Structure formats: C-alpha cells, structure tokens
C-alpha cells in the first residue's frame, strides 16, 4: 500500500490544485525556503491522521490553514454585490494498487476512477442557515471558522473517520521546538512504546521506593519538623509537610530525564539531538505500523558525516516503506539518489524522470550539487567555465552596488558544455536563466544549438546571450589560429590594451601579447580582473545576461 498521488487545494501556500505524484519507495522533495515543502508533508499527515502539530486538528482549526489570498479575496467580496462562496480546503490522497476496493470510485477532482480519500474542510451544511444570517449582518473581518467542519470521504462517496484510513503516516520533524525539553516527550515515548507492563511497573515501584526513602531521610524529617512548627501557630491545627507528588499515576514519568553519556538530553548538541530524535521516532510503534514516513529536513544541525549516518539509518529502517523527505541539502538529495528527486518550485513539481532520458542520465551522473543550485536560486546565469564565472560575478557587482549575485539569490553556475541539459530543467520549473556563451566565430552554430530558445521559440525567462559580432585577426598560437571570440579577447576589446595592462600588472604588452598571456594564465587573469579597483567595461552580451 502506498500513496501514488496527492492533490492539495487551498491549503496554506497552495491555492490552485497542486498535484504531486509519488514513487513507491523513496521520494525526496527539494525546493527553496517557502516553496511549500513542509506544507506538503503537513497536508499528507493531516489528511491521513487528522493531526496537525501532534494535536487533533479539529480543535485547532483556524483560518491560517487556508490560503491567505483566497481568504482575503473572499472577505473582500462580502462587501460587494458579488460575494464569493466561503473557501474550502481539500487534500486528496490517492492510493496505488487495487487491494482497497472500498476506497475506489470517481468522487475526486480528477473525475476518473481512483482509489483514495478526500479530506475536506468546508462550511458545514447544518450551519448554512446561521452562516447566511452571519453574512447578512455584515462587518466580517475573519473567516467564520465556527461554521466549518472537517470531513473525510472515500472516492466511493462514503464518509469515514480517520481511524478507518488504511494507510498510516508518521511525521518526523527533528527540528521541532514544540516541547520545552525534548527529553520528556521522548522518554515517555520509550516508556510507552518499548517497555512492557512488567518493566513499566518495576520502574514505577522503584520510583516509589525512592520517594519513601526521601521522606524518611533524616534531613527531610528535620525540614518537615521545622515546617510543622511554623504552621502550628495557625488556627487550623493540621500537619503540613514536604512530600513527593504521587497525585497522578504517571507523575513519576516527569521526573525522569534521558541523558547521553551523563549529559542531560537537552544539553547535548543540537545535531546529536536530532539524530536521537529521528532514531527514536523511527523506532516508535506508530512509525513501525506506518506505511509512509514523512521526514522533515533531516539535515538540520548535522555535519555531512553525521547526516550520512542518519541517512543510512533511515534507509535501513524503512526499506519496505514509502518515505517522503523534504530537504534543501544537496547532500541528502545526492546520497539518496537523484532518480527519487522531486523539485518543487513555483507551485509546480517536476521529477527528473519527466525529463528526456539522456538528460536524466546526465544529471544522475553529475554531483547533485549543481542541479540543486539551479533549483534553489531565484535566477541562474549559466557560464562555460570558472573564469567566465568570475567575470560575470564582477559585472553583476559593478551594476548592483557591489553586491555579489548570490546575495540576491542569483547563482552563476559554470556548466561546461551542458547548457541545454540545464535549460531543460529550468524550462520545467519556470526558472529564469541566462546563458552566457562564446560564439567561437560561428553565431550560426549558436543559433542552431539554441533554436528551441530563440526567435519564435523563445521561452519566458530564458535568455541566450552571446556576441553577435565576429572578431577576426591574424594571431596564431602554436600554428593554430587564435580564437578571437571567447570572453577574454572580447573583454580586452571593450576595455582597451592600456587598461588591461594596468589591471593585470603586465607592462606594456601589445594586444597580441595580451591575448597570448590571458590564454595562458586564464585563472590568474580572471582573479585579477575580479579583484581590481579599476573601472571596467563589459561586453554588451554580459550586461544583457546580468540584467534583471
């Protein structure tokens, strides 16, 4: 049993229906902050369990679960002559396979035969009358949440309770600061889920003996005598003494503390805490029964090597389960396999498997780092090599008050010759991208190569920048004609021999000498240009690329 698809509508940041297809085993959601990764996990967990933040959602229902824009559009419309219907949240969870016929039917937003459950938060039919009166009175500034109800149905239009949902989820959030001290809640997890009745009673008895010994200790007896003497003067002649709380059956649990190597749990490193929390959560009875494990940003507070350890743990513990991990760590994504990657961006989801198979192969081979950079930045500038990267960065700084592009979430990525592969991903996730490429003396070839992105085929947000002018000259290096149409000669052309000599600290080299020098000392020259305090002039196609 596994989740094959989730459709979220009007829940938090997802206003329009957001559809996410899931694999049987591992699924990794990557995306920038604020793209809704955690919301997806929260929505799935909510629809399957009725729990939000570990509490029954029904009691915590508030307008903040609704999409902000739709709530405000609704509230604004109430004062006009065209009031909108009250917004509804819907989360549909579709289940793969055909062993749950009870949940099959065509009652879902796809209108096709599916197996699954639909979770809805909507105006309760029984309150329609009250709602109408309420709206008529006017002056409504908040969603009338008291008239809403939470409701689960199967695709066969059967009302069900969350207990009846056959697919169980466990949400593990190692970063949560929900509890005062992480230890109390985890120790009670251990006690409740890993100890049997006999062990538990043994622990309770030992605790009681400890209490008895405490009361009988001479210093405590002494203290009690003092207290009693003080209170005796009062009108009510009753004994007052210091004792230990025995009021609730489980009170003793609170006085336990987990410690790691003699250090109390909440005093150990945050990283260690998250590993232990995650491990405990995976061992939890509920996780063992669960069919899907939802794991939120496991990389929090962890070094690469500890993360590695944790990932291996997750992998081993959950080999037969469906796992959904949200992350912005390229390491997590890379380690767990790019084929499981789901990119969430601009309320859209893309899988690498949706890309042409050759591109998919390519990205599976390269380290995931660059892929994720493209996914996580706001805008990407793709360049051929490291030197181009430095020059483009400098150009960006010069026209943006000295800010590095990355400070504006613009990432300059050097991709060698694989421009087209990156463009295919960018196109899928609507990511603005500029390509900075040499024309190598053959603008026709460039036009042919990028034919899918130029002229009539141009795509919004995707810019192909190259110099339309072809420069020529007689220089030969090692009997081969010099290529005047790469970035360095273009840069020399726009800044002049004199300036470049000054920047590079080369003395009175001629143009040809500079060409030769810059070709032989690419990185050095790029660094010097990057760091120089001189005013620089950049070729137009570079300026086009960094333009916002």
């Amino acid at each position, binding site marked *: 049993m596994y989740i094959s698809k989730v459709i979220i509508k009007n829940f938090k940041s997802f206003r329009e229906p957001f559809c996410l297809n899931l694999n049987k085993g591992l699924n990794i959601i990557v995306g920038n902050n604020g793209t809704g990764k955690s919301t997806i996990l929260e929505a799935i967990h909510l629809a399957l369990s009725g729990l939000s933040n570990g509490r029954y959602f029904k009691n915590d229902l508030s307008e903040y679960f609704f999409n902000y824009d739709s709530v405000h559009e609704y509230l604004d419309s109430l004062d006009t002559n065209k009031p909108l219907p009250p917004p509804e949240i819907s989360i549909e969870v579709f289940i793969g396979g055909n062993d749950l016929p009870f949940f099959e039917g065509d009652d879902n937003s796809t209108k096709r035969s599916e197996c699954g459950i639909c979770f809805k938060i909507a105006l309760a039919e029984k309150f329609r009358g009250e709602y109408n009166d309420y709206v008529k009175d006017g002056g409504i500034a908040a969603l009338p949440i008291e008239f809403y109800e939470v409701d689960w149905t199967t695709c*066969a239009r059967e009302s069900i309770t969350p207990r009846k949902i056959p697919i169980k989820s466990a949400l593990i959030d190692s970063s949560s600061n929900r509890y005062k001290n992480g230890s109390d809640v985890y120790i009670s997890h251990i006690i409740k889920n890993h100890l049997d009745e006999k062990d538990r009673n043994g622990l309770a008895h030992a605790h009681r003996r400890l209490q008895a010994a405490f009361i009988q200790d001479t210093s405590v007896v002494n203290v009690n005598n003092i207290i009693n003497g003080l209170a005796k003067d009062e009108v009510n002649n009753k004994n007052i003494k210091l004792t230990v709380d025995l009021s609730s059956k489980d009170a003793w649990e609170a006085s336990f503390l987990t410690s790691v190597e003699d250090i109390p749990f909440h005093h150990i490193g945050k990283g260690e805490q998250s590993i232990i929390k995650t491990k405990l959560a995976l061992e939890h009875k509920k996780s063992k029964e669960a069919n899907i494990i939802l794991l939120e940003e496991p990389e929090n507070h962890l070094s690469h090597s500890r993360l590695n350890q944790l990932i291996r743990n997750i992998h081993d513990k959950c080999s037969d389960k469906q796992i959904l991990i949200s992350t912005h760590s390229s390491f997590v994504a890379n380690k767990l396999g790019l084929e499981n990657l789901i990119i969430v961006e601009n309320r859209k989801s893309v899988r690498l498997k949706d890309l042409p198979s050759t591109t998919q192969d390519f990205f599976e081979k390269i380290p995931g780092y660059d892929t994720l950079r493209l996914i996580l930045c706001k805008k990407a500038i793709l360049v051929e090599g490291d030197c181009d990267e430095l020059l483009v960065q400098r150009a960006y700084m010069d026209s943006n008050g000295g800010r590095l592009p990355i400070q504006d979430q613009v990432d300059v990525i050097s991709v060698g010759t694989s421009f087209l592969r990156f463009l295919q991903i960018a196109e899928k996730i609507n990511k603005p991208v500029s390509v900075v490429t040499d024309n190598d003396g053959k603008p026709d070839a460039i036009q042919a190569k990028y034919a899918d992105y130029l002229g009539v085929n141009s795509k919004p947000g995707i810019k192909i920048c190259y110099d339309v002018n072809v420069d020529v000259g007689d220089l030969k290096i090692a009997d081969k004609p010099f290529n005047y149409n790469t970035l360095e000669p273009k840069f020399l052309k726009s800044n002049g021999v004199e300036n470049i000599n000054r920047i590079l600290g080369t003395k009175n080299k001629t143009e040809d000498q500079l060409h030769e020098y810059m070709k032989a000392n690419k990185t050095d020259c790029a660094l010097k240009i990057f760091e120089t305090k001189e005013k620089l002039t950049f070729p137009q196609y570079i300026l086009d690329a960094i333009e916002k």
Partner: protein
Amino acid sequence: MPSKNNKLIISAAGSGKTTYLVREALKVSHGNVLITTYTEANEQEIKKKFYDINGSIPINITIQTWFSFLLQHGVRPYQGTIFDGHIKGMLLVNGASGINYVNKQGISVPFTEEKDFQKHYFSKSDKLYSDKLAKFVVKCNTQSKGKVVDRLERIYNYVFVDEVQDLAGNDLEFLKLLFKSKINTTLVGDPRQVTYLTHNEKKYHNYKDGNIKQFILDKCAKECTIDETTLGRSHRNNAEICSFSSKLYPLLEPSIPCDCIECRSSSSTHNGVFLVSSGDIDAYRVKYNPVVLRHQLAIEPEWNYGNCKGLGFDRVLIYPTETISKYLCDGRLSKEVKDKSGNIKHKNAFDIAKFYVALTRARYSVAIVCNNFSQEYIDGLIKWSSKGD
C-alpha cells in the same frame, strides 16, 4: 476460492431460512460476505440470529438492506459517470415515481429517462427514487464499463440475498450482473411470502409476485441452479398447518413438516387449524394464550400480518378480513373483474401472501375468528367451542 456457484434456494415458511443463511455465512473463513435483505426488520432478525448462534458478527460479514447496499456500492462509487450532481440519499416510494402528469384517462405519464433524466430518477430534494435505484446502478455499471461490478468483486466473495421474492424489475437485472461476476451469489426466498414489492416497473413484469424461479429458468438457467429441497421442510408448522396453508398455492409444491425428532417432540395436544366464534374468543385466549394477528392496526403485543414475517409463535389467533372469511367458506382464490375496456380478468380474491404469512407463524395451532359458526367451511378447519372442548 471454491469454484463459482450461484443458486436460488426456495424455502418453505418456518424452514429455518435465517439460521441456514447465518450458518452458511459463518462457514466462510476466507473472503468477505454480504447478507442483504429487503426489510429492515429482517436485517435485524439476521443480526440477532448471528448473536444467538455465534455470539457476535464476524468482521468479514456485512449485513445491510438491499437499498442501502445498492446506494453504497452501486450508486455512490461511480455515479459520476452518469450524473454530475450531488445525491442526497434515497426516497422510498410505494407507487411509480417521477410522474409528469396524469392524463384524462387517469393514466399516469412518467418523465422519461431520455428527456428528463433528473426528474426521472430524482425527487425535488435530490433523492434517488427507491424504485429507480437498481436501474441507476445497472446504468452506472454500463457507463463505467463494468467498474461497479469489478469493484464489488474485490470487496465481496459471497453475496447472500434473503427474501429474494421481494425483488423485481431492475433488481433482477442487477442479480444477473452478479451471476456473471466472480461473486458467489446465493438467493433465498419463499415465493409464497411476497408482501412488499420494490418496484412497480414494467421491466420483467411477468416475474413479479414472487415468480423469481421462473425468471431464473427463463433468463439465467446457465448461471444459476435452483434448489427446492434444502429448505423445503418446515421446522415450525405441523402437518395440519402445512397442508392447510399449501392450499393457497396449488401450483407450488406443498410444504411438508420436518419429521426429525427435535422438531416433533412437542407435547401439544391442541394441534391444527380451528374456527372460533367471536363469542368464544375470550375463553379460547384464556385457555391457549395465542398471539393475535390482525390485518392492520395491531397494537403490541398483537401483530399485523405483514410485519410478523420471519417470526414464529406456538399458537396464533387470526382476525381475518372479509375477503379471507369469504374464502374460508367458498375456497375460491381468484375472482373475475372487468377492466376499463370491459375485458374479464382474474384477480386474487384476497391478499393471499399475507394470509399465508399469518397462517404459517404458528407451530401447533391456528385459530381463525368467524362470525357465522353454523355455516359450511372448506376442508381442514375444525370448529372449536368452549362447551364442546
């Protein structure tokens, strides 16, 4: 799973039909079982029987009424294939539903499915008419290319339909779909005990009034076998009651009392069908303490004929209707009536099915109230008098 087997078991009154069904269902250890029946009273009876026999209803067994079953598994899952709106449930109707107007000849003209889909199937409150339920289900199945039955096959391995004589029209069409599916379908019913009709439809008109046996023979002989022996003996009624009640259905096999020792170990000496004059009623009731059955307006602890189906009492006292009293004298089951165009038609002289139900409630004795004690009566009736007894 054993090889697929559909059967119709024709039962006699008091043959232990419910007990049989419950025992059959309990035999199923692998797979899910649905037991469905027309009336809520019988649904309760089946549930009660489970507690009597088994102490609980196993998790793999579902008991629900025919309408509730059709609504849950026939209509709801794939209603979207033929209808886009919201269905608010079912509206129970007795006569034909979805009537457009009544013409000058007094004939009701219904909304047609083709022209007025919504009004044909639904009431103004968006409820599906009970008599169109099965029709809607069959249509859902056709439109969804068999998804309704396909889904059902994976939910239930066995379907038992109790009181099958109450089904008619498109219900039968739906039964045909079940026969052709992977589901083992068992139908149980007593054609003599039709007291309700789910439909007043033209479809399969010939097979109404409990003629389910003929339907199977004509339409589904290949898919379904007929068993008239398993439940052919009455564990309840004695020989006198069996033979007197069988007179009401001369075309069917007479029911015979079960002759096992357990069934016949009674020490009752007052056995048979008796006539009691109205003046003797009190004396009779004091002596034998019978359960009183009336045609209508019974107040507890008395019963209406129609409501006591499935129940058994040691002795009953029946207040007959006028037409029943007439039958007891002349023995005629049908009467001739002229219809509007002047043709002579044969109609039942009285509500035979209900009278049959009333008679067959008793284990030992049936007493029928009569006003004219001195008259001649049909065979099988013994005149009882407080003086002569």
